[in-house]
């Protein structure tokens, strides 16, 4: 939503939230984010292929 119409608050909140979190010892964050990205990419590809097959 970084479109100059208002709504970029979301990434600002996310970024600020992440920056102020005590991350020492949070070793799960990187594998969790990697898994999340993998799921998102897989989900996106499946959606896209299904759309193409449905015309």
């Amino acid at each position, binding site marked *: 939503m*970084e479109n100059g119409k*208002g709504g970029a608050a*979301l*990434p600002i909140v996310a*970024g600020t939230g992440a920056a102020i*979190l005590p991350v020492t010892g*949070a070793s799960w964050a990187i594998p*969790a984010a*990697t898994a999340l990205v993998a799921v998102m990419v897989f989900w996106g590809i499946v959606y896209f292929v299904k*759309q193409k097959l449905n015309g």
Partner: protein
Amino acid sequence: MPEITITYIRESHDSKRAKLALIIPAHNEEMLIAGTINSAIRAGLKRRHIYVVDDASTDNTAQIARDILGDSNVLTVAHSGKIGAILAAYKYFEIRKRYIWLHVTDADGLFGHNYFRVFKRRISPKYVAATGHLQSLNGGWVSKFRVYEYTIGLEIMRRLQNWFGVITVIPGPTSCFRTDIFDIIDFQSSSLTEDLDATLQIHRRKLGKIGYFTDAKCYTQDPKDFRDFRMQVTRWYRGFWQAVRKYRIGLRPAKIDFYVNFVIYETIIATFELFLLSILAIVSHRGLQIFAFYLIFDVVLMFAWVSFAAIINRRRDILYAFPLFYILRFTNLYLFFKTFFEVMILRKFKDIQPGWETVGRRYRVQTG
């Protein structure tokens, strides 16, 4: 631009004038024009108050309009672009003399079932212009993204804009002007986004208040694919920066300046933060952890917003395309800065006559 104050004076012939006319400018819109006209009739506007101006279409647009409205309410003009067509119809049909308000819409829109009944009830001399509540028609993944965007942009931001009197744009599909104000606004201002330009003129020239009627729903067709989305957003942003430059938005102590500054700096801060976190992720392991948190937070928050949009629009289908929204978000962000560079730094698009940006990108939609 001179600032003038308009005081509505009840004109002696008001009692003879009808309250509201609709002009639909169209160029090669045979696929959708009948739906637009019929939805306006169902929404409470009589046929005799609906006018179509056909801008030299090469398809059956004019004939379809005549079949529904009759010959007297359809005008065909030489190819002159959307604004040229509207102004020609405004003059030809003597709108100023015969009507108190003029509504203009795009030929790809559909009106909600009470749209004009709401407008006729709520437009009053205290407003100089008015707009309804825009929603996205069913379509592909870009349209699903727009449902999410409109939910944030209209359900939340537009209500706040209305509250503070800083509505930044009266969108093309749902734009209504008092005819005395329509005469004053300069619509031939070489803008890529004439609706934004007209709205900012209202603010800059202190013409009066803009009404926002949330219970008047209007549906518009969004780009069918990524290429059209990119073209449309590029045009919008170029028009946005054109207007910012032309009216020096952000440089005066006015509410509209504060609001536009807010949305510009909000985007810049978000981008700077993303850039900073990316650098941190590259240079240190702890930075990578923070970036990972950022990513997780962002996805969770965005999924919550999209779920909210799906619930209030009763559109569960938009959730299915959720991962692809990130492509469009980052495209938006890229185009925001690209067009800033083009318009504000390189000073491009100073004098441009927009044509019909919808040519070749219409598609049939599933309504309901």
